[in-house]
């Protein structure tokens, strides 16, 4: 096994082009588990942690460009107001020690259907910034997941950053598990109200071969919510929304839960999440107060 330590991003891209079989490593919270448990030995490890710009995030217009090396702990500490859905999901990842190392880009690299970043990234239309010596390309999040633990990256590509729009309305993430920490989701759900566009975004986790949106539920809610009058949520609308979210899933029975349980739980999660988000919308809370007008830091690094 080789251990490759690029000092710069350009060097990392060169190394990945020369050694496409090399496994990138950031927090190592997926990669090292595999090696320690002898589930597979990479031909080489490509350590991305020395590259400073990967640890930076910046605000570019209405989008946060989240460097691939920004840890969950920093995302929670520095970006909670602007990326509330992703920050909530980050809070549920593993334990403090895992969040101090783990990254959203690592979650995307692993592309586990149970990864907690995926539902909020789907709900708020994130874009993955992939790069290789051939150039950079932007992959809409909905096209990123291609199968169980498979993603759209080419063998010579690395994730440079994830572009996540700043919240323009309430966002929630919820997840089913056996305890409050250290839990791989039995199923999970995220919602984002894009209030200005009168649109609802969703993401469903751990209930299909890939994380996915619940498009029929999004369209139903967008049409039935009283965006102008902000009247209370009709319980029938909430219930139907939950059913449509559950209908978008294609769960399996496994050690964490039965398919029937996942379907039921998803309907409940989705119904509740819509209720919380709508209550925030009516109260005029939950959106990023600094959106558009500046306010808050515009960049962060470590």
């Amino acid at each position, binding site marked *: *096994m*080789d*251990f490759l*330590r690029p000092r710069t991003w350009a060097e990392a891209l060169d190394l990945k082009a020369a050694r496409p079989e090399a496994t990138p*490593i950031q*927090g*190592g*919270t997926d*990669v*090292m*588990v595999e*090696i*320690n*448990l002898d589930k597979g*030995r*990479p031909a*080489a*490890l490509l*350590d991305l*942690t020395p590259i400073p710009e990967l640890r930076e995030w910046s605000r570019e217009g209405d989008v946060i460009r989240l460097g691939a090396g920004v840890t969950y*702990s920093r995302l929670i500490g520095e970006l909670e107001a602007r990326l509330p859905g992703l920050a909530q999901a980050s809070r549920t990842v*593993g*334990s*403090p*020690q*895992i969040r*101090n*190392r783990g990254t959203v880009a690592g979650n995307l690299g692993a592309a586990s259907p149970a990864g907690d970043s995926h539902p909020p990234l789907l709900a708020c239309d994130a874009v993955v910034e992939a790069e290789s010596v051939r150039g950079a390309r932007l992959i809409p999040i909905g096209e990123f997941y291609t199968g169980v633990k498979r993603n759209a990256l080419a063998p010579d590509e690395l994730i440079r950053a994830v572009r996540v729009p700043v919240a323009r309305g309430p966002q929630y993430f919820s997840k089913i598990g056996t305890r*409050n*920490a*250290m839990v791989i989701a039995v199923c999970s759900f995220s919602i984002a109200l894009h209030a200005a566009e009168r649109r609802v975004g969703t993401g469903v986790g751990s209930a299909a071969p890939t994380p996915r949106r619940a498009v029929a539920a999004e369209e139903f809610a967008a049409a039935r919510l009283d965006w102008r009058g902000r009247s209370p949520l009709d319980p029938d609308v909430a219930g139907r929304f939950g059913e449509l979210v559950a209908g978008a899933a294609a769960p399996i029975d496994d050690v964490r839960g039965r398919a029937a349980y996942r379907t039921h739980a998803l309907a409940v999660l989705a119904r509740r999440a819509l209720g919380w988000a709508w209550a925030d919308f009516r109260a005029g809370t939950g959106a990023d107060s600094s959106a558009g007008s500046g306010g808050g830091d515009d960049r962060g690094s470590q």
Partner: protein
Amino acid sequence: MRVNLTVNGRATAADDVWEGESLLYVLRERLGLPGAKNACEQGECGSCTVYLDGTPVCACLVAAGQAEGREVVTVEGLSRGDAPLPGAGPAHGDVSGEGLHEVQRAFLDAGAVQCGFCTPGLVVQAHALLAEADGVPSDADIREALAGNLCRCTGYEKILDAVRLAATRLGPPP
């Protein structure tokens, strides 16, 4: 490969490191620091918790090469003065408890140590919590901070007592 790093304030190097090896293995097997424990090697138990550049992490999930040029503090490095350092005599030499950090002493005094296997990781994680905390942290905050540290013996109540005791003794931050 060779890995150069600073451990508990001392610049050091480990040789013949396998490229897939963890920082935990380097600390325990190559640098003679058995404080951080190896229990699960998958990030679940927290018994291998050490500081990496000031942030508590599971040493079992840090690739050895990722520690190149970085600063590691283990549980051995938290005690003062006569803390056993590599080559400085038996690791169990100091039974008096002198030189222990307040967090370590609080674990002993509160009865939070039974078999002791989880203790080094809990001590480092509790140390990190108290370094940030303003006064005695709430139960919810302690439980959240220690959520990644498993103990099979104590039932956790004495561990919570130990953290509160240490917080009280350490007093408010300067």
